[in-house]
Each structure stands twice: as structure tokens, then as C-alpha cells.
């Protein structure tokens, strides 16, 4: 399964609302990063990423998120990860990236 990204400019909260569905791995992580960086090029705002339907992310996907986070820090914005599933939350913890990203609302299954 590949991934699908839906993005919406949330003018009320002044951020990008992004939904990710599917799996991010070495096959598609570059495309994932490019898609998110394009949003920041269009408007440099916070990225609020809903991971409710993100079934898997690997080290290259985490690397893509780190690159996007570095970009947001250039204009003092942030990446907020919402509804992270337990399998992904564990990978954020073992890589200590849970201390780097703002993670809101981990899902319990």
C-alpha cells in the first residue's frame, strides 16, 4: 500500500492540516518529504499532521519528517503529530524523536 496525503489550509488556526493514509517507507519517503516541503514553500506555517490512518512509518520516513521539521524551524514554525498509532509511537520513542517532535494524542488500540 502506498500513501495518500490530503492537505488543507486551516486559516482559523493558521496552520496546514495534513492527513496521511497508508505506509511510508524507503519506496515513497522522498515523495512524502517533497509533498510536505511544497506546502511550506506555498505558505510557511505550522504543519499539523494527523497520523490516525498512518499504518507504518520506517526510518526513512522519520528522516523525512526530521528534514521537514528543520525547514519549519527556519521560520520558527513547528510540526505537530496527532493521533500517532502505538506501533509508530514506539519507533519515535526508540529513536528519541518523541523528544524532538510535538506529539499530541497517541492512539491506544
Amino acid at each position, binding site marked *: 500500500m502506498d500513501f495518500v496525503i490530503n492537505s488543507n489550509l486551516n486559516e482559523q488556526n493558521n496552520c496546514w492540516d495534513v492527513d496521511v493514509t497508508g*505506509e511510508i*517507507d524507503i519506496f515513497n519517503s522522498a515523495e512524502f518529504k517533497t509533498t510536505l516541503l511544497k506546502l511550506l514553500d506555498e505558505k510557511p506555517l505550522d504543519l499539523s499532521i494527523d497520523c490516525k490512518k498512518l499504518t*507504518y512509518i*520506517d*526510518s526513512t520516513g522519520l528522516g523525512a519528517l526530521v528534514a521537514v521539521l528543520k525547514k519549519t524551524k527556519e521560520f520558527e514554525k513547528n510540526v505537530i503529530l496527532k493521533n500517532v498509532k502505538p*506501533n509508530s509511537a514506539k*519507533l519515535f520513542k*526508540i*529513536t528519541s524523536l518523541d523528544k524532538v517532535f510535538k506529539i499530541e494524542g497517541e492512539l491506544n488500540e
Partner: protein
Amino acid sequence: MNDEKNDIIELTLPINAAYVSAARLTASSVSNRLGFDIDEIEDIKAAVSEACTYVVKYYSSKKEKNFCIKLNISEKQIDISLSVDAATKLSQDEDDMGLCMIKALVDNFELDFNENDHLKISMLKKHNTSSFN
């Protein structure tokens, strides 16, 4: 461990990022069928995926074409090995994030190059509950 009860599943895949999901799906399906719990299945799935990613990352631009995944399943554990019959000398990158993740996900992990530069990644995940049928 009773060797007679071991089942062995072997999968040969092209060194291509497009097939990492096939390895992940196989590992997930086999460990699910064998009664590993959901957390163990996720660990096995992620460890296999990261090992494949390591192979793809370092060999996809080289002349090696395929790699082999072997799942050796017994009552108490799953022993996973990935091997590349490599003609290319590869320097080990122990700081690779994927390898660090594997070390945290499995009970035993080894990365070896033998005298012919063949790469072998070995991972062992023990069964917590021993509920095999």
C-alpha cells in the same frame, strides 16, 4: 529447541525499494499465523523492513541484483536472516538509524561480512507467550 519442528520460509527479492513492503507483509503474516502478539508482530515487521531498507540503501546502486530473506520458525522464536551475495565491498555504518531501531526491536542482532564480502544480517525475536498451536 527441537530442530524437527522448525519451519523455514525463504524469500528472494530484487534489491529494489518497491519490494520492501512485500518482505514486511510476509514477516507480518507469518508471525501472526504463528501466534505472536500484536506488539511482537509490529516489532518483527519493523525489524525486517529496516533490514531490507539497509540492503536497498547500500546496494541498490551497485551490481548485486537480489537478496534473500530466511525466516526460521520454531516453537519459541523466529530467527530471521537477510543475505546478499555481494561482489561489492561495503563499509559498515553502525550509526545507521535503521540498524539502531532493529537493535531495540529484537532480542539479538548481528551484522556480518564474511571473507567474500557477503553481507548477512541476523535477527532473533523470542516468543513471549509460547502459544503456538
